[in-house]
């Protein structure tokens, strides 16, 4: 102890005993201290990476050209208008070097090919992270408020969604995520205001429950509420994990609040014809293209059919026969806004189809559920539950108003500060993890959490998370010129008798006209300029497919002659292209020499037969529509205009624009107009 003390005091004397010496020592210490800062600059992390990069390229074949393009020092992408100051390229030197495709060590990997030049928008706009930083830790994993850590690569498509409100072919995950937000009804409760100012609308079409007692039983409602996916695997209704008592009370309220449908609905069941063909129901189901919209689980457990309407695997367990019969007869009398068309079946067909569908039932489903008469207390509690769970946010329910802003606004969820989130113990504290976990199991975040469990797979959850991350603060503040608005439905409604008829036939459930409707079937906005009236009339009478590669899905509606005429006349007059003048059209009948010239051009110069079939005996093109009867289907003016520029008439069509000269187009139009249906040709002869 004493010797230590002596040692220290002698060292002190040696160093600071003399004034001059002390001054000198202190000066040296000060010099060394001041040297630390420039030394830290010189031995900084990015210097090390740049040296590493130089060492790496030295070994490569194209070392000289790589070395020439290498720029030492801090590199920066600067776009003040979008708030980008990205110094990532200081370490990620090889991002733009195509020849470094085989390099796998970071930070020297080449960036995958993307549609934008790399320095057009910088890095952090998609990848997040702190662009201004020049150290690994600060750039990628900063915990500062207002700085996002680097985004895991699996959510990277959210970056695209900040500007692109439309669906891009390169972002399947983002597109699906947005679709799910609408399809699973997330946006019924949550407000999602897109950066272009539009509010996302749900597409799940939740049924109105105003007349639910007409349609189904309390027992079915109970079983459905307990687990919707047990009834239909594809059901988008979330699972609220209700107790037996709650489900029973809810069903009691829904049945008791239901009002019988106004008007006299015929409840007498039409008996199916006794000697009916047992397969008649199945074939009518097939002929009417029910599977275009409705799915049924097959023996292997796979869903076969579309997802526009509800799954019908166990529909016999659900609906009352009388209701089903009335529904098939005319769905609009139960639900005026249904996407299902009014098929105009004959009473016999209705009976056949009702019988066929009622047979689609599962004898094991909800057999042991027996609910007695509901008490007033049960009904009152059921009503309370309806309000608490926000049932009316999706469904129309008698006696309960649709709640406004039932769930939190998600319009800027993609930039929600971490300080505002409550994480579960042991959870990775990042925004993507939080969103994905919340969707996966909302009830884990507290017993008071009202959000139900959505029937999503892991991949679907990842998509939804991607779509939500795209709703960032940055997406809201993006300059207007960088914003690509989404494609939104217009409110177009055709007027008059034809309009009423089109609503009745639910044309817009498949076709799009003037920006309104679905894209299941061709856009009909210019149909009046395209087709001949006679053909349209006969097509409505008996539809057939135009494309051999596609299954026909246009159903036959048993329209009366008058209805057909109304529709045809309306379409021919109302849906005209402003750019096609029928008066200046090439003539429908042409001299044989011109026809022959057109044939030559069709087969040799433009080789149209690679995609189209003009002669069913010789041609094998199946990509485009069959043209064997195009002369009876299309108008010459349309054919001519189409040949000149297909994309002008139907944006995005895959038919190439071959810059066909006026003369050639005229000749080919003449040739195509001679391709008539055999019936017509015989008639002429």
């Amino acid at each position, binding site marked *: 102890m004493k010797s230590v003390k002596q040692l220290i005091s002698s060292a002190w004397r040696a160093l600071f005993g003399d004034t001059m010496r002390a001054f000198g020592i202190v000066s040296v210490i000060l010099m060394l201290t001041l040297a630390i*800062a420039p030394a830290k*600059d010189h031995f900084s992390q990015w210097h090390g990476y740049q040296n590493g990069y130089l060492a790496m390229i030295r070994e490569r074949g194209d070392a000289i050209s790589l070395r020439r393009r290498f720029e030492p020092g801090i590199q920066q992408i600067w776009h003040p208008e979008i708030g980008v100051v990205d110094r990532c390229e200081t370490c990620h030197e090889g991002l733009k070097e195509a020849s470094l495709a085989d390099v796998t060590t970071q930070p020297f990997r080449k960036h995958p090919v993307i549609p934008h030049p790399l320095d057009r928008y910088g890095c952090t706009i998609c990848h997040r992270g702190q662009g201004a930083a020049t150290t690994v830790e600060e750039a990628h994993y900063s915990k500062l*408020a207002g700085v996002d850590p680097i985004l895991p690569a699996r959510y990277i498509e959210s970056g695209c969604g900040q500007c692109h409100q439309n669906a891009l072919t390169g972002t399947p995950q983002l597109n699906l995520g947005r679709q799910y937000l609408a399809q699973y009804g997330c946006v019924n409760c949550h407000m999602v205001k897109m950066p272009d100012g539009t509010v996302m609308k749900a597409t799940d079409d939740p049924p109105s429950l105003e007349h639910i007692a007409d349609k189904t039983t309390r027992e079915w409602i109970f079983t459905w509420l307990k687990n919707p996916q047990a009834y239909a695997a594809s059901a988008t209704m979330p699972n609220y994990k209700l107790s037996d008592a709650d489900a029973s009370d809810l069903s009691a309220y829904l049945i008791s609040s239901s009002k019988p449908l106004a008007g006299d609905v015929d409840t007498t069941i039409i008996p199916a014809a006794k000697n009916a063909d047992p397969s008649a129901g199945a074939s009518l189901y097939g002929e009417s293209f029910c599977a275009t919209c409705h799915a049924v689980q097959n023996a292997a457990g796979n869903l076969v059919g579309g997802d526009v309407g509800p799954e019908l695997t166990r529909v016999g367990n659900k609906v009352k026969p009388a209701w089903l019969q009335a529904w098939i007869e005319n769905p609009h009398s139960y639900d005026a806004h249904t996407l299902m068309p009014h098929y105009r079946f004959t009473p016999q067909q209705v009976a056949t189809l009702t019988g066929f569908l009622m047979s689609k039932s599962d004898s094991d489903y909800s057999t042991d559920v027996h609910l007695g008469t509901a008490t007033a207390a049960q009904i009152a509690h059921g009503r309370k539950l309806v309000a608490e769970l926000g049932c009316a946010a999706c469904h129309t329910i008698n006696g309960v108003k649709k709640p406004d802003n039932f769930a939190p606004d998600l319009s800027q969820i993609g930039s929600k500060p971490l300080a505002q989130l409550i994480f579960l113990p042991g959870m990775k504290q990042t925004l993507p993890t939080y969103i994905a976990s919340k969707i996966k199991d909302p009830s884990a975040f507290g017993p008071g959490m009202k959000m139900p469990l959505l029937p999503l797979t892991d991949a679907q959850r990842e998509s939804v998370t991607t779509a939500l991350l795209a709703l960032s603060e940055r997406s809201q503040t993006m300059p207007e010129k960088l914003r690509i608005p989404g494609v939104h439905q217009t409110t177009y409604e055709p007027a008059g008798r034809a309009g009423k008829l089109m609503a009745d036939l639910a044309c817009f459930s498949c076709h799009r006209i003037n920006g309104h409707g679905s894209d299941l079937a061709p856009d009909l906005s210019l149909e009046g300029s395209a087709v001949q009236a006679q053909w349209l009339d006969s097509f409505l009478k008996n539809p057939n497919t135009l494309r051999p590669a596609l299954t026909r899905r246009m159903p036959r509606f048993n329209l009366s002659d008058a209805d057909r005429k109304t529709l045809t006349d309306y379409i021919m007059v109302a849906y005209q292209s402003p750019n096609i003048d029928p008066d200046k059209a090439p003539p429908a009948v042409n001299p044989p020499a011109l026809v022959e010239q057109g044939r030559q051009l069709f087969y040799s110069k433009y080789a149209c037969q690679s995609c189209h079939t003009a002669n069913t005996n010789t041609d094998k093109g199946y990509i485009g529509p069959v043209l064997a009867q195009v002369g009876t289907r299309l108008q010459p003016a349309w054919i001519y205009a189409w040949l000149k520029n297909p994309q002008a008439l139907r944006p995005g069509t895959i038919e190439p624009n071959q810059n066909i000269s006026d003369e050639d187009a005229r000749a080919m139009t003449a040739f195509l107009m001679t391709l008539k249906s055999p019936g017509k040709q015989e008639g002429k002869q």
Partner: protein
Amino acid sequence: MPGKIDKILEQVEQSRVWRSIFRSGRGTSTLHNALAIQQSVFLHLFSTKVRKRMLSFSSTWYLGTLTLGTFFILIVTGVLLMLYYHPSVPQAYADMKDLQFVVSSGLFLRNLHRWSAQAMVFLVFAHMFKVFYRGAYRAPREFNWVIGVVLLLITLLLSYTGYLLPWDQLAYWAITVGSNISAAVPLVGSKIHFLLLGGNQVDANALLRFYVLHCLILPLAALLFVAVHFWRIRKDGGLYVHQSEPKKAGAVDETELVKEVQ
């Protein structure tokens, strides 16, 4: 060799140019030394003579001098920081990031400024405690104590106004809270609040006001009061002599210990 250097120095000091700048002339007499202090605009603030005892560490702990030292460090680093800093909302935080990541030794500069500021506040308090507990505020030094209190306030205000300039979350909320305290003053509270921020909330105007206060008004005020403070040390009879220890019989009279200091 050393003789030669001395000769050259002597020649320089006797040259006309040197004499025109330093009027006291060459010499080691008491008069010469006193003139050297008196005739320099910077040094004449100080006493021409100081008791040797006062220069020992134990008498003052050098707290005032150290405070002045940190103040000079703050001026130098502050001026350098001003070369990189724009007091505007879109730029202020980005400039902090540039200083941290891009400017050579920028982080060192910032940290030196910050730590010196912390040290200065600490030293000012320590200096005042020392003065207080030793009774150095008593007559004839009452007025210098008052100036010292003003300097304390200026130091605290400098510290406070500098806090907003990084324009990060900490700064923003600290100033929001701080300015709301001023709003609690009866009657004129909201007016003071408005005057301080140049608006009703911490925004571009507040940033600019705080910048001007921090870089111009408050430092100039501090320099002025520091000058008065030093001048008053001289006028109030030099550094305070500690007399609490009883005089020992036969001890050497203190006046004999007086030594000229240049």
